[in-house]
Every structure is written in structure tokens, then in C-alpha cells.
């Protein structure tokens, strides 16, 4: 437990995944650094309140996400695209089309998703968290996480497919 709660060890273990999560949300290096640093700063102040050391990872990701949402709500400068709640068709974009996008483009498309989809999709692709951990981080039921992931992934691929231009690949009905 002491090892888990040691500040330096904690930073060493989690600063990279936290930064990547922060960057995928904020899309700005400076903002991502600030979010990561702020997360550890909050940990230093309040981490002792955490009883279960096995929850450190989800606590850190949850805190970072909350900080991000708090900042974004203050700034209200991030536009997002409202899409239909129902997504009956899965747009199929070819792997090659995705490869033509750079990371910034993909993250820009992620940022255009509705807020509730951004964090789960980012955590999904960063592959540092299981579904259960994503559910814990976002503090929503596992089923909700899975449905948000399904919609978020579909919409992200649709956005990327739309931006690729040219003839759309086939669309498959689920």
C-alpha cells in the first residue's frame, strides 16, 4: 500500500497514460501537461482519503477527467457536433482511409463527438483500461460504458470516413 501511495512511484507509473488521456481530450500539449500535473497535485492533497489502494489508477483518471470537464465548461470554447441518438448503421471506413489521417486529425474528430463519448472512446483506444476500469473512471454502469463506446466508435469512424472524401466504402447494417 505504501508503495502504491508513494508520490514519486505513482507519478512514474501513471504519468504517461494520464498525459495521453489528457492529450486525447484536450488536444493541446500544454493543456494536457497542466491536466496531468493538476491531477497529481490533487492526489497529493486528497489522495490520503482513498482507502482502497487498488483504486488509485481509476481515481487518477477520474480526477483528470473531472478536471478536464470543469475547465471545458468554464471555457465553453469547444464546439461539439450533436448526432442522432440512434445509430442504426455502422459506417465502414477502410483501414487505409484511417491511416491517411494523422493523430491530430483523429483527435479533432474525437473532439467533435458529444462529450459523453469522448472520454470512453479515448480510454478505449489508449488501451490502458479495461471496460470495468473505464466504467469506474467515468462512474457509470458497465452497460452504459459499452453502449457509449459502441456509439462513440461508430460516430468517430463515420466522421473520419466523411472527411476522407471520395467514394465511401460499403455500409453494413448491424
Amino acid at each position, binding site marked *: 500500500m505504501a508503495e502504491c501511495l508513494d508520490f514519486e512511484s505513482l507519478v512514474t507509473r501513471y504519468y504517461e497514460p494520464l498525459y495521453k488521456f489528457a492529450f486525447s481530450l484536450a488536444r493541446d500539449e500544454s493543456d494536457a*501537461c497542466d491536466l496531468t500535473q493538476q491531477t497529481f497535485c490533487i492526489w497529493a492533497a486528497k489522495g490520503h482519503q482513498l482507502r482502497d489502494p487498488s483504486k488509485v489508477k481509476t481515481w487518477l483518471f477520474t480526477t483528470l477527467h473531472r478536471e478536464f470537464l470543469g475547465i471545458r465548461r468554464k471555457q465553453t470554447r469547444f464546439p461539439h457536433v450533436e448526432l442522432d441518438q440512434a445509430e442504426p448503421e455502422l459506417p465502414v471506413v477502410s*483501414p487505409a482511409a484511417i491511416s491517411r489521417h494523422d493523430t491530430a486529425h483523429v483527435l479533432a474528430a474525437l473532439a467533435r463527438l458529444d462529450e459523453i463519448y469522448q472520454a470512453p472512446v479515448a480510454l478505449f483506444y489508449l*488501451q490502458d483500461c479495461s471496460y470495468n476500469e473505464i466504467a469506474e473512471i467515468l462512474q457509470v454502469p458497465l452497460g452504459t460504458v459499452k453502449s457509449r463506446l459502441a456509439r462513440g466508435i461508430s460516430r468517430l469512424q463515420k466522421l473520419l470516413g466523411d472527411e476522407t472524401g471520395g467514394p465511401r466504402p460499403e455500409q*453494413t447494417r*448491424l
Partner: protein
Amino acid sequence: MTVTEAKAILLLYRPGTADAEDPQIAGALTLAKREPELARWLEDHCARQEALRAKFRKITVPAGLKEQIISEQAARIVTLSRHRRNTVFAALAALAAVVILLIVMSSSWLPRRQIEDNTLAIYRNQMAGVALRGYGMDLTTNDPAPIRAYLVQKQAPSDFVLSAALQKAAVTGCAVEGWQNVKVSMICFRTGRPLPPNQSSDLWLFVVDRASLKDAPENGQLRIAANKGLITAVWTQGDKVYLLGTEGDESTIRKFL
């Protein structure tokens, strides 16, 4: 499980992760091995997932971020401890300032008041007021011995010297008065003149330590003054200052000196 259901399940499948251990995903993967269409869809899906995953993998962490987080936290702790130390120091400094202020006030203002009030004129005025406005005798007696004994007991001036005229005057009692935190012995006499029914004395001698007056008369010097209807005579003898008062004029008081 249908192919459509399997696609919905496999949409969340991340190749190379523990997702395959999920029972639903494991079932869908099993189905994909039997269904060529699903197998092709899965192959494309995995390629898309990997392509997207590659984009997220390209997010690079700035060099020095870890060291920055650790060093800034260390600096924060130092700042906090310095802030706490400064807060404690500030509280102690404020306390010290209050103490110094109180000391200054008590050593300058209050003593100045004492010094300013410590004059013969004020003393004379105040004792005349005691005699005229009424007083309660602590001890009523016509015997001088119990009066001295009482004053000794009360640690008030008791080794006073009486003039021959006062020794002959009829003593009626005594009281201990206070003045500037110093005890004053008050010995009451009768001049022999007729007194109103509620009055037992008409001649009063006040004795106080000389040190309590900043402008006490020199030895052998007599100061006679009228105060509030009383005629008073003040003189110093030894370490005591005597104040004698009665109604009348200077000739009246001089009869008892």
C-alpha cells in the same frame, strides 16, 4: 448468437488485449471462426481498430514531464511548509507586538497617569473629599492604642507622630483609606466644638508614606490651604506626610499643629 449480434459485440473488441476473455466477445470470436462473412468483417474491424489505435499510440509524452511534476510538487511542499512557518511566525510576531504594546502602555501611559495624579494638590483634594462627604470608621474608639494596633494589622501607616495638641484632642476612631494604590491612615478627632447629631468627628489627620507623593513638602515646611470648605495643613516628618483638616480658618488648624 447471430452474425449481426456478433458484430455489435465485436465492435468493442480490441485485438491483443484482455477483451477476448470477456464471455460475450469470446463467443462472438468463436462464431467468427465458423462464419466467413463475420470473419471478413472482423478482419477489417481489427485493421481499423489497429489503425486508430496507432494514432493514439503516436501521442508522445513531453520529455521532462515526470521530473517537472515531481519537482513542482517538492517545491509546493517547501512553499507550503514555508507558508505554514511564516504563518506561525506572523502569529507569534503579532502576539509579541500586542505584548510590547501592552508593556509600552503600562510603562508609559499608566505610570504617567500615576505620576500626574501623584501630586500633593490632588491628594489634599481627595482626602478633603473623604472627610467632608462622609466615611465609615473602621474602628471607633477613644483609646489611641487600639488605633495604632489596628493600623499595624492593616499594614497602614501606624508609626505616626502626633503634635502635643493632637495628643490632647479627643480621638474618636480610625479608618484606612486608599490613594494611588497606597494605604492612608485616617485618624479622627474632635475639636471640642459642638457637632451635629450625626457627626462624631470634626478634625481629621491623614498619614501617608512620603514616597507616594512626588511633591511632598520638605521637612519642617508647612503648607496651609483651604479645600472644599476645609482648612488643611500639610507637613512632612520623617518618611510620612501628614495632612490635618478641619472646618474653620488657618487659626483653627494652627491650634492643633
